[in-house]
């Protein structure tokens, strides 16, 4: 590609000397170079992101067999969604998961950020310690927690025993397994949001706090009148990103796939996991695509509402 971008470098006003073919103007050369620079990524994104996205929308109207044969089935896949009790179950599980995970990440992320946003001995070490679960792979995280949460003899139950508490079947009781998975998810993700909040906190000018102190503002007033309002853009970003990743992030799939396979009794079958199961375990590609389209549409609407309600998280102050 360098050959075409390494266009002749004479200043454009100079007349073409003895070369055949039309000379490009400088602006045209610049545009040509830009297109060539962007081409590899644009092509890749078009083929491997945009095309599947569009393909997904149409795939929902087809039945696909294992050999790649397509048959148009109209709205059959969407009708099936309405009557499939497992799909409804997975929607419910996802709703509970999102409604707990998003606030939990907000509180833990902000809490940790406030905790380590002050001069303190070893503060850098503490920040690293809070963040480190996030660099380990989700497969390792899932496997490790699975061993630690084993019934009776697992490390967590031993710890409970030690404190004189009775243990639980963390990954075997349909009533608590989802919460066990949520706990692991928060543990894995909170360090990431801590860093986002930390950078938000560090952007708040010190003078605001000095002024508050001089005015005799109490701790609550300082937090609710200064910290929280000035963090609004960060908060918006965190809510949006954590919402999208709660519904369709890789942790939602990886942890469930390794730790519970959607069980027990489908109590942890998140939509994103159920879609994968329908596609790659039961070969119902069309049905899976229909559910994925529904999920994307829902996410888009929620995102749009979030944007509209918070006006993009912008907050005007003078």
């Amino acid at each position, binding site marked *: 590609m*360098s050959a075409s971008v390494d266009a002749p*470098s004479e200043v454009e006003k100079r007349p073409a000397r003895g070369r055949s073919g039309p000379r490009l103007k400088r*602006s045209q050369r*610049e545009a040509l*170079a*830009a297109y060539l*620079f*962007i081409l*590899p*990524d644009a092509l*890749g*994104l078009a083929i*491997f*992101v*945009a*095309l*599947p*996205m569009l*393909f*997904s929308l149409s*795939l929902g109207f087809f039945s696909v067999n294992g050999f790649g044969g397509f048959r148009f089935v109209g709205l059959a896949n969407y009708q099936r969604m309405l009557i499939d009790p497992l799909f409804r179950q997975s929607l419910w599980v996802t709703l509970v998961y999102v409604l707990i995970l998003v606030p939990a990440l907000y509180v833990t992320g902000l*809490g*940790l950020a*406030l*905790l*380590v946003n*002050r001069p303190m*001995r070893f503060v850098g070490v*503490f920040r690293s*310690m809070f963040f*480190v*679960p996030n*660099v*380990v*792979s989700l*497969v390792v995280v899932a496997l*490790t*927690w699975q*061993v630690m949460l084993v019934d009776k*003899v697992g490390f967590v139950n031993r710890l409970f*025993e*030690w404190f004189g508490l009775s243990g639980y079947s963390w990954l075997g009781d349909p009533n608590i397994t989802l919460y066990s998975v949520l706990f692991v998810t928060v543990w894995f993700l909170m*360090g*990431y949001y801590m*860093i*986002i909040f930390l*950078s938000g906190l560090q952007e708040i000018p010190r003078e605001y706090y000095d002024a*508050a102190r001089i005015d005799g503002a*109490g*701790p609550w007033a*300082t*937090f609710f009148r200064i910290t929280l309002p000035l963090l609004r853009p960060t908060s918006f*970003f965190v809510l949006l990103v954590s919402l*999208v990743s709660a519904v369709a992030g*890789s942790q939602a799939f990886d942890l469930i*796939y390794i730790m519970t396979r959607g069980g027990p009794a489908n109590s942890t079958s998140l939509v*994103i996991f159920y879609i*994968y199961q329908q596609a790659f375990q039961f070969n119902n590609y069309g049905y899976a695509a229909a559910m*994925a389209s529904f999920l994307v549409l829902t996410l888009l609407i929620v*995102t749009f509402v979030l944007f509209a309600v918070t006006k993009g998280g912008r907050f005007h102050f003078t």
Partner: protein
Amino acid sequence: MSQPTAEIRALRPSRNFFRRVGPILLFCFTAVLAILTVSPLVWMICASLKPGEETFSPNLLPQHWTLDNFAYVFTASHFWRYMLNSFFVAGTVTVVALWFHSMAGFALARLKFPGREVIFLVIFSTFLVSLPVIIVPLFILVRQMGMVNSYAGLIIPAIFNAFGIFLLRQFYIAVPQELQEAAVIDGASYFRIYWSVMLPLSRPILAALAVFFFLANWNAFIWPLTITNDQNLWVVQIAIASFHNQYSSSWNYIMAGSAVVALPTLLLFFIFQRQLVESIKTSGLK
């Protein structure tokens, strides 16, 4: 959690006792929390150094230290091969992605051309599409291209993401205009400006992104799971996940495999902490 923090900061000098004890309490609280946070990872590493019958002992530290679990993992499976596969896939994706994204980021930031805003917005909007959502059509597409069970299938679709383009564009926008103008006056071509001016300038952010991409691809699970079933193409994540099915009761082997898989990511994190944290911060600022 926030209340005590703010409270101590705002206490009046008259409440001297709290002023002195508060920070100590806060320090202890933070330290305990931090230790609890890393304890599962410490537990994993300890479990990988314990013989099988000790896995579920109440002690954290092994009573009999052993490396047998590691020896077993590397002899009973082709673990070296899986490690090499992971290094190759993650390394290739990282290098190619940095190259493509830096070119695109440079053009979007520094060159003028019709449709620039539109192209940027379209690229940016792919930001919102996550892999699990498009995995079904993507798999069908890649299967039609004949890339199932191939390195190409593992590598090529993983290269393209808007995040890297976006970050690099942000960086190149901030480069002083004079540097580019000087190069133009010297008669440098656009490729030369990119290669000899912009790339060297962006070394820090490229390093940060390299760590970021390598970690993400080393840790990737759902795509390798979907696109490969040939054992020769397994990456480490697939390997340890399948240990799980194979030796479901031999958790000591699974923990040893996990420790080996986690080790490169932990090392990268400790060496490149600052860069990693910077790139996350930038992604949050917009």
